[in-house]
């Protein structure tokens, strides 16, 4: 795979390119994910993995009931996840709806990133002009990362060029903000579609490809993330550019997070073990990581009474 679509040769060429991608062996993907998740992790490696995972968390709140107070509290938590232990690293980012981006930015300053979901999140059902306006608004309010959703309806109908052009058009108004493209793999039905959507997003200029909105089950799973990691690895081999991956939704325990890190290391490579190239979209995960960290530093099991409620 050394050629990519150049964006000028028409919708048919794009379809031909995506459908020429090799199919995903579903049983093989499940088997590989299961094998990698049974690796034994020794205490020292675990300690480092937990800190790395904390620094990769996109601390997320995407509820209709989000208040400025909740966003401020969450932003403070991203800055200092464990108020009693300054050796805990900051989270990577606060991820909120675009109207809350300004509030998050006020709290975190330049210390952590602020991501805003834009483009008619989570359904993606709106006119392009509306999606662009949503994106511009988020950037103006201080978001330096934009999490956009693709138009799954168009993708599933086979209108790949529409999806491609939409990503390009959103990227144009991002004004330098990092663009994460949410594939919503739970709605794409097959791993072949996940691979096609990953390539489509990367060719259109995504800086990150993200599994899910968190509003649809199943959200992130190990096999789906494996397929996406293979895509960014193949893209790197073809173009020399490293694209990030963000599984989001459904990752709740430190154990899960470490399984993902093992898979990143074994699939894309150790270069991806940085918050610049791998993120976890989560809210509850951070507390479990903190409890495991407390378990390792105090020598006894911790509990939910000993971490902050967000």
């Amino acid at each position: 795979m050394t050629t990519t679509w150049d964006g000028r040769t028409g919708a048919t060429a794009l379809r031909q390119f995506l459908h020429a991608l090799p199919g995903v062996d579903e049983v093989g993907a499940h088997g590989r994910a299961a094998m990698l998740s049974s690796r034994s992790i020794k205490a020292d490696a675990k300690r480092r993995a937990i800190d790395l995972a904390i620094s990769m968390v996109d601390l997320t709140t995407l509820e209709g009931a989000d208040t400025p107070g909740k966003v401020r509290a969450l932003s403070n938590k991203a800055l200092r996840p464990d108020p009693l232990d300054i050796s805990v690293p900051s989270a990577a980012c606060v991820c909120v709806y675009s109207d809350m981006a300004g509030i998050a930015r006020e709290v975190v300053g330049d210390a952590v990133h602020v991501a805003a979901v834009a483009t008619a999140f989570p359904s993606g059902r709106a006119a392009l002009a509306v999606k662009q306006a949503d994106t511009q608004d988020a950037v103006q309010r201080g978001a330096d990362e934009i999490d956009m959703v693709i138009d799954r309806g168009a993708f599933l109908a086979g209108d790949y060029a529409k999806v491609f052009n939409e990503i390009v058009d959103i990227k144009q108004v991002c004004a330098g903000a990092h663009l994460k493209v949410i594939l919503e793999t739970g709605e794409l039905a097959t791993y072949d579609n996940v691979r096609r959507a990953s390539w489509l997003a990367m060719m259109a200029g995504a800086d990150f490809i993200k599994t899910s909105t968190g509003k649809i089950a199943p959200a992130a799973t190990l096999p789906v993330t494996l397929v996406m990691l293979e895509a960014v690895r193949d893209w790197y081999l073809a173009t020399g550019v490293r694209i990030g991956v963000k599984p989001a939704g459904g990752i709740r325990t430190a154990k899960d997070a470490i399984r993902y890190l093992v898979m990143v290391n074994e699939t894309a490579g150790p270069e991806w073990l940085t918050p610049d190239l791998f993120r976890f979209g989560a809210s509850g995960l951070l507390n479990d990581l903190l409890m495991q960290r407390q378990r390792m530093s105090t020598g006894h099991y911790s509990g939910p009474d000993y971490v902050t409620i967000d």
Partner: protein
Amino acid sequence: MDDRVEVRKTYKLFINGVFPRSESGRTYPALDSKGKLLAHAALASRKDARDAVLAARAAQPGWAARDAYSRGQILYRIAEMLEGRRDQFETEITRCEGLSARRATGVVNATIDRWVWYAGWADKITQVLGSSNQVSGPYFNFSVPTPTGVVAAVAPARSSLLGLVSVIAPIIVTGNTVVCLAAPEKPLPAISLAEVLATSDLPAGVVNILTGQPHTVGPWLAEHADVNALDLSGVDDDSLATEMAVGAAGTIKYALPPCDSDWTLDPGLGRLSAFMNTTTVWHPQGR
């Protein structure tokens, strides 16, 4: 000639309503009163204890939120199931504790009666332990006992069924959930009790039973920050009791001291009140 191969029971742990093997895969021999092998019981590890606490924590709010009457009915149901399995329990304690058949029947009777007695307290304990307090001002002032949360208990080493039930029942009837370490030398009645609990409408995770050595698992439970209280009734080793009490002191926990006494005596309300906190509320008197 009878060439049928007997189907033997694998004794496992009871965590979150299901029967897993120990996470470590290890077992240990359970002997009868004459030192003959009865079965191999699962040897719980600290990770099994951790899983059990997670299950107990997840089950606790829902169990406490049930109305007391409903908790009482579920406990009565358990007593019905115990009655249906009395032959199995009699056989097991005859072999484990070396009792005569007549005395084993007496112990099973006492066990079922003890369970029913505690079941009856479900919707009465608040009236007895709670109070309406006199205050200076136009207020109602109530003190209400509320469940402590997740309790870790060590069951009595000698009384493998009556002692076990006398420890578990008062903890759960008030809305707590429990992780109980069964008598290490006589674990089989505990697992049979778990089979009763698993088939009597008791929500998963309210009772979790681990078989194994209190020395290895007990201190982890005592230090666990998500365990709210400790019942050391069955700890017959002073140094372990001290170690667990010291471990519990690192976090806020109530610890009931060791007391492996005569379990046939009237238990009183001590065990019920031990695992409840008192909440006092003020309410303005209306007109």
